[in-house]
């Protein structure tokens, strides 16, 4: 275990961005929520970039777009290794992979999600038949169970997981925003330390307990978001049109 700064008290996990960034270091394993940058915490990723953290081993659905989501971490050569389901929307990551500068492992998207969830809920892995008969089974153990063959897909965790919530309270309870939810709820469970960036931080009791998606017990720190600072890809296309 890395020695890290002390965590905030459980009754108030709200910290400054600067305080949260103290937990990031070169060579770390970092997991992030988001799907094509939608739902990837913008303020934390920008902070990681500006702090100069490098040699990262990343786990997330994709590499975003060059200017969106996790994309700038690749553009600025901060990533050594990536486990993702696709990188097609970030051609710079593809170029780095082709040149051997970036090590990429692909996992089918649903399998990747379940591997992260498994890590987050204390399982050793999951049994999946998706990808049998394809290169996705290369190097994977198989297991026969009740007459069917499965790939043994190991659980995933990370030193730090970062997620993007619509609302958080000081206990770390989270709700998300429409399709920006995607990988965030289970990524939030899979970090040794989980940091949630929220558009709005509300008082304890303000969130309906029936509607909380991520219970605060999984979240170690809450940071106020500064909002989306990039231009969505469909906005870029509209500007070009």
């Amino acid at each position, binding site marked *: 275990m890395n020695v890290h700064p002390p965590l905030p008290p459980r009754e108030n996990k709200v910290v400054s961005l600067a305080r949260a960034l103290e937990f990031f270091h070169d060579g770390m394993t970092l997991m992030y929520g988001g799907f094509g940058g939608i739902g990837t915490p913008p303020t934390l990723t920008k902070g990681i970039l500006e702090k100069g953290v490098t040699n990262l081993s990343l786990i997330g659905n994709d590499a975003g777009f060059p200017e969106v989501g996790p994309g700038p971490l690749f553009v600025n050569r901060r990533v050594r290794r990536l486990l993702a389901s696709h990188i097609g929307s970030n051609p710079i990551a593809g170029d780095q992979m082709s040149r051997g500068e970036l090590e990429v492992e692909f996992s089918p*998207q649903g399998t990747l999600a379940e591997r992260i969830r498994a890590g987050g809920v204390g399982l050793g892995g999951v049994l999946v038949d998706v990808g049998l008969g*394809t290169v996705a089974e290369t190097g994977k153990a198989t297991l026969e169970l009740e007459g069917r063959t499965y790939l043994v897909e190991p659980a995933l965790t990370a030193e730090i997981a970062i997620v993007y919530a619509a609302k958080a309270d000081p206990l770390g309870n989270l709700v998300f925003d429409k399709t920006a939810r995607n990988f965030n709820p289970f990524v939030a469970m899979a970090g040794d330390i989980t940091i949630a960036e929220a558009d709005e931080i509300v008082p304890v009791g303000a969130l309906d307990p029936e509607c909380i998606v991520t219970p605060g017990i999984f979240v170690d720190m809450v940071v106020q978001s500064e909002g989306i600072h990039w231009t969505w890809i469909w906005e870029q296309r509209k500007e070009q049109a």
Partner: protein
Amino acid sequence: MSTPAPPSAAAGSHRDAANPGASANPGASGPLGTPADIRRRIAARAAREILPGTVVNLGIGVPTLVADFVPHDIGVIFQAENGMLGYGAAPPPGHEDGHLTNAGGLPVSETPGASYFDSTVAFGMIRRGRLDMTILGALQVSARGDLANWLVPGRRVPGMGGAMELAQKARRVVAITTHTSKDGEPKIVSECTLPLTAERCVHLIVTELAVIEVTPDGLVLREVAAGHSVDEVAAFTGAPLLVPTPPGVF
């Protein structure tokens, strides 16, 4: 290849020398129109495969266009693997929400009864067999229904995304593609040479030239595009085509 350039390749064969990376030359046109026309023609035909009241996932790219051709009043529920059931048309300009998109990252809208969920739930419903149909793009489809659509070694390294789950687990898989590649090579082949997305998964292939069903006996030609012949389709297909009954015209 000694065979003449197929209609679908006519537009793409005029490669833009100044921009060799361009996927197609939008200024060129062939007998079936521009590449945009061809894409819409394929999407329109594929849309007719969608039955009322079904749950459908549309893949990224040309499959996304299919939604434009599905009537709004037939109760189709579109699923997006980024975590939504029941998305609707793109909102009017100025009303888009960056946090409300389809799996291609393009803005969509909520329909009544829509729901949001995380990606494990999205793929849970896919793996569990709750999707009636998926429509996916294809790089190659084999005579036995193998699909390759995620990787061209040494050229394209996008990754499989959610395509393996969709191809392997949706109850019905419609593969849509131009009939041949930009280089005029058949995309419907006896054996896929590209890495597979899933084995024996495709039920129906829709191209700008033909509608072809994958059966235990092989590929059966069901429909031919207006103005084209069975022989023409066969010439541009890299696997034997069975024609047990006269094909329809679309």
